[in-house]
């Protein structure tokens, strides 16, 4: 039996940014961006589910983010995660990778009882690939980044293949270990229709609090109890729940600051238009020969 905790992230769909998402001052209006499940994290979840199928155990999905990030936790449940945690607090806003890894590592310690921590190699909104290793360091556990394959898990050890510059290597590590996973390693399974039916009403504490605000006849404790009973409660961890140092959370705990943001303004330099004809291209090649680039 091996238990896994999978770190997942809801990201703005940076591949589909339209002009309107940029504010006049050149900053990004995140609220206008469609939010999606970071693909590599989905791959990480799939790998964790496969470990569970091979060796038994439990898969827990966690995410740090705003309340709407519970969307991707529901998707984790649809795929087969046993449990999900939303780690959310206004004080987490503006976190860079260091502050994020602090919060995530403390949440993982609190959840406890794990052999593996999984994550995608990187998230598409920053491409930094930093949160995985930074979390492993804070947990004081080894890491296998750029994982391509889990070869074997036995005797509290894992053998895995990972990408290296110019090739690959096979490493063996004791457990617990943190793995970051490349995007093509396995294909995430589709949602199970049965699980979608079962979990589409799963709600986080924040979702339930909203319900009580809208309807004064509902009481939060009762509601939580009811959702827990039905297995539809997405556990929620706040800064207080985790007893965190506020100075290390969110923007306060982030050493990197955005000093300046510039919209990409196209220079509009003049270029010579070449006609898409044999003559046009012939003249271009002549010019390049004269410049000693060809010939």
């Amino acid at each position, binding site marked *: 039996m091996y238990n896994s905790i999978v770190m997942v992230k809801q990201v703005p769909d940076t591949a589909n940014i339209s002009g309107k998402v940029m504010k006049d001052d050149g900053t*990004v209006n995140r609220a206008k961006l469609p939010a999606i499940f970071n693909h590599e994290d989905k791959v990480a979840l799939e790998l964790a589910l496969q470990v569970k199928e091979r060796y038994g155990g439990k898969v827990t999905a966690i995410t740090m983010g705003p309340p709407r990030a519970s969307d991707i936790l529901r998707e984790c449940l649809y795929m087969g995660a046993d449990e999900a945690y939303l780690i959310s607090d206004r004080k987490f806003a503006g976190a860079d990778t260091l502050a994020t890894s602090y919060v995530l590592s403390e949440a993982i310690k609190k959840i406890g009882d794990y052999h593996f921590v999984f994550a995608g190699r990187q998230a598409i909104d920053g491409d930094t690939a930093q949160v995985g290793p930074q979390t492993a360091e804070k947990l004081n556990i080894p890491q296998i980044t750029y994982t391509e394959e889990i070869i074997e898990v036995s005797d509290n050890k894992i053998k895995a293949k990972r990408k290296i510059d110019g090739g690959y290597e096979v490493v063996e*590590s004791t457990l617990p270990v943190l793995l970051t996973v490349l995007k093509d390693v396995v294909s995430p399974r589709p949602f199970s229709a049965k699980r979608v039916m079962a979990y589409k009403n799963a709600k986080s504490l924040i979702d339930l609090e909203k319900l009580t605000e809208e309807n004064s006849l509902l009481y939060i404790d009762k509601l939580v109890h009811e959702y827990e009973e039905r297995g539809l409660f997405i556990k929620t961890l706040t800064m207080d729940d985790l007893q965190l140092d506020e100075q290390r959370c969110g923007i306060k705990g982030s050493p990197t600051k955005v*000093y300046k943001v510039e919209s990409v303004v196209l220079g509009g330099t003049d270029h010579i238009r070449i006609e898409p004809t044999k003559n046009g291209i012939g003249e271009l090649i002549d010019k390049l020969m004269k410049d000693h680039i060809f010939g």
Partner: protein
Amino acid sequence: MKFANEVWVYVEQRDGKPADVSFELLCKGSKLAEEMNGTLKAIVIGDNVTGIAKQTFTYGADEAVVIQHSSLKHYRTIPYSRILNKLIEKHTPRIVLFGATIIGRDLAPRVASNTKSGLTADCTDLKISDVKYLKQDYPKLLLQIRPAFGGNIIATIITPDVPTQMATVREGVMELHPLDKPKKGKITEIEYKPDPIDEIVSIIEQHREDSKVNLKAAPIIVAGGYGLGNKENFRLVEELAHTIGGEVAGSRAAVDAGFVTPDRQVGQTGVTVRPKLYIAIGISGAIQHRAGMQDSNKIIAINNDPDAPIFEIAHYGIVGDATEIIPMFIDVFKHKLK
């Protein structure tokens, strides 16, 4: 805030061979150190790496710190990060730079996490500047410049309130300028004290092939993008490259689509190139791609969208269908150079 006025570059080696990107970073690091009136240190970890340490003086290092031991022959996260954590804790350098290789991206965040330093990934430029931030003056900070958010913006990141500023940079971004006369640097050897925790991960086997692709050295590069639509059309790019004696490259989208292998990716998260001629075909010209090729001597853009941003940096532009233009180009070229 106490720190040493030093720039450190982690000099990466694989199988005892130094990585190009580390020497490129030393060249940049030596300029940064000059602007800070500081010194440049190369940190070399491995087995029998004194030779690499000596080479760093050709790229501007004032001092090379060497940590060598037979069990450090191959990079492993825990011993290497433990060594750097201790060195940084003891000396508190102002700046530490890493190549954004797989090793650098495994190591740098681990070290930044331990030392609570700021870390910015994949910078496309680094500068030293006095900064006023939230009404406070910070002299000689490291400006860490990188495209962000799908290339819609260029962000300048600073880490004003921590002693050590860290950044990773991709291969080819910084230019290599070996000195005519190497610096008279000193080599400082530091003893490695093995710890059982270093052996918690072991390497069972390792396969590495030196890439035969050397985009940085190619005088002519023909690059294709997602706009080509499919792998068959991408063949035309290869054919053109073959005809005119160039190397094949691709945008990230072309790599993601499987048209071309990742070792041929040009751009912020690939290689940065400065060839004599760069032909961009079916590449729209997102900032991340332009960051990797805009310093090319001559740029030809071929695209069916006359408003594609790539034309903004091109010297010559051809608007039209690449599947018609490429065969025409090949035909005319063969005819002219017969």
